[in-house]
């Protein structure tokens, strides 16, 4: 390790010891994991581009950064209100990683739903069962271990806040659950290492919206680890709406474990962030388990968005369906690496994967790599990737009907994203994405009115 690289790693470790000193004593099992995380991070160092999984993503902007840890969750209520999704929802809010009770809504939680900040879950866990940390400590880190990546190790070393959601068997949550992460524009950049644990009991059902957003000008680093456990027959829809400010740095490692007949549907909608890396892994462990990965990434300016996905078909008759769409403008850089692995004896599985990209500028770049590894013989699998530009003939055809060029391009861009957006059930989210991708289009077109008009015609 060179001196410069070593000092990058050391800077993060120094922050860690500062924090540990300030925090004081903690339960030994937490301290032990922290230590293991730090040791692993120190051994690995930040990933460099000679590592295959990081070939196209340069994390030096993170490694060389000098990030402090936030100490309060102060946030202007008016600004928060303008950033919060206008949805009737249960909500946990974090400001630069710190839990913000004033911006959260935890009243009216239905029976069978436990939703609380990790810090509280750890305390309750500790107080209730001093010698037994199984309740939270057991699942925490089981799916995303420190060996997964340097970032997962770093998260484990710093882990102290995040969200814990547990759904008892058979619980159906009507309102969506929002996990909101606000990023502040401060004098010095900060980092946070949120930890999310979602445990959906058998036959439970919920929609979780993870929303990353912040003040313009913020340049913070978020390093998220998320573990999702779906028991038999559980159904979880998981939105990850990334609208962080354009100088924010964001790394997320998401692991999903699925038991028999469970269904996990992911919407990875990435609009914001200067440097974004998502790792999304699903383990299909029981027959009938189904994972749907819907992704849309839109990059402009010099945004860099890297999505790595992996589906492991570990059991027969499991299903995965992945559809990622990338739209890149200006000098934005996108990376898609999707892998589907069918384990030996995982017969009669279906795994479909598709990645299509639209380049709106000559200087935009996409690196895409769909991968399929099959060790069973009775399977239905497909994968494919396409990259193209807007059809200039179509732009001309629309302009020939009086539609101005910007609107025509916006409309065609939206049409490209349509396949993914049509799956989005929450209008609030679909509209935000449409507006980001197509600029002025929604106002000009009054899409809602059109849809109504079209529906009415059909009904007659």
């Amino acid at each position: 390790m060179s001196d410069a690289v070593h000092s990058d790693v050391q800077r993060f470790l120094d922050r860690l010891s500062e924090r540990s000193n300030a925090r004081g004593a903690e339960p030994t099992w937490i301290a032990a994991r922290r230590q293991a995380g730090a040791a692993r991070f120190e051994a690995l160092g930040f990933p460099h581009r000679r590592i295959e999984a990081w070939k196209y993503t340069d994390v030096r902007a993170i490694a060389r950064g000098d990030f402090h840890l936030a100490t309060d969750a102060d946030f202007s209520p008016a600004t928060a209100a303008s950033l919060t999704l206008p949805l009737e929802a249960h909500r946990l809010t974090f400001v630069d990683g710190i839990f913000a009770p004033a911006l959260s809504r935890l009243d009216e939680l239905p029976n069978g739903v436990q939703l609380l900040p990790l810090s509280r879950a750890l305390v309750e866990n500790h107080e209730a069962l001093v010698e037994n940390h199984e309740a939270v400590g057991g699942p925490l880190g089981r799916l995303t271990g420190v060996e997964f990546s340097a970032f997962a190790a770093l998260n484990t070393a710093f882990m102290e806040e995040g969200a814990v959601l547990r759904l008892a068997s058979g619980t159906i949550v009507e309102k969506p659950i929002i996990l909101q992460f606000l990023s502040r524009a401060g004098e010095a950049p900060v980092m946070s290492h949120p930890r999310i644990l979602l445990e959906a009991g058998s036959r439970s059902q919920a929609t979780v919206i993870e929303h990353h957003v912040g003040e313009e000008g913020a340049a913070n680093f978020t390093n998220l680890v998320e573990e999702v456990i779906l028991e038999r027959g559980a159904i979880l829809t998981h939105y990850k709406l990334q609208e962080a400010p354009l100088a924010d740095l964001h790394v997320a490692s998401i692991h999903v474990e699925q038991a028999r007949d469970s269904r996990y549907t992911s919407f990875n909608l990435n609009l914001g962030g200067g440097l974004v890396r998502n790792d999304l892994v699903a383990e299909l462990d029981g027959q009938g388990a189904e994972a749907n990965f819907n992704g849309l990434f839109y990059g402009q300016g010099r945004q860099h968005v890297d999505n790595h996905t992996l589906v492991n078909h570990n059991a027969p008759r499991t299903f995965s369906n992945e559809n990622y769409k990338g739209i890149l403008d200006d000098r934005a850089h996108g990376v898609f690496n999707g892998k589907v692995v069918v384990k030996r004896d995982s017969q009669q599985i279906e795994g479909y994967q598709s990645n299509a990209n639209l380049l709106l500028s000559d200087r935009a770049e996409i690196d895409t790599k769909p991968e399929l590894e099959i060790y069973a013989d009775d399977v239905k699998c497909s994968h494919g990737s396409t990259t193209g530009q807007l059809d200039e003939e179509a732009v001309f055809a629309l302009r020939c009907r009086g539609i101005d060029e910007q609107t025509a391009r916006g409309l065609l861009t939206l049409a490209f994203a349509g396949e993914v957006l049509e799956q989005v059930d929450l209008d609030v989210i679909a509209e935000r994405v449409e507006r980001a991708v197509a600029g002025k289009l929604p106002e000009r077109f009054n899409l809602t009115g059109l849809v109504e008009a079209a529906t009415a015609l059909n009904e007659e």
Partner: protein
Amino acid sequence: MLEVKDLHVTVEGSEILKGLSLTINAGEVHAIMGPNGAGKSTLSAVIAGKDGYQVTQGSITFEGQDVLEMEIEERARAGLLLGFQYPVEIPGVKNIYLLKAALNAQREAQGLGEIPAPAFMKLIKEKVASMKMDTSFLQRAVNEGFSGGEKKRNEILQMLVLQPKLAMLDEIDSGLDIDAMKVVADGVNSLRAEDRAILLVTHYQRLLDYIVPDRVHVLVDGRIVKSGDAELARELESRGYDWVQEETAA
């Protein structure tokens, strides 16, 4: 209404139109005929503003405005609409979106507000019915998976909704069976009005049995070599284009 004067157009360095002049007045239906490669499609493409055509000489004015100075969408909003020979498929954009967006763009240019939803629906239903199309077409992506005939009907439907001042129809009859052609011709005939003009570009006289033009022009090698009334089209049908070329050469 439309005045084309001494128009010279080159495409990739070769001259396609070599001094074409044409005047179309309100209320008239003109047909431009000619052999393949004469430049028929070039004329309407240049008027609509398609890329790749360089006007080296001459002028096009529409209601006193210099068309060549106008953006593509401005031309359309001013009432100059081109019906395509090969309508492009636009996946993901529903027909109804296109129609409403186009109509509202036109209304905005005229200083009118957006059309209210009920009025829009009424208009669309009426026009769809007159083109003998099913309303399910409106929910389908523009031209995607449409047959040749459906695409052409769709072009006329757009004309009926947008009510252009000058409708230019490029080979609107190509690929149509006789029944589809009658529907298309009925649609075009319903556009005929005192304040509107229609320019048909066609290779075959057949269409002109259903849409009877006031003026017929023969375009050969980038110039209009002969003009006449509907009778000229019938003469071309029976004698072909060669005699015109010979007559001109002589």
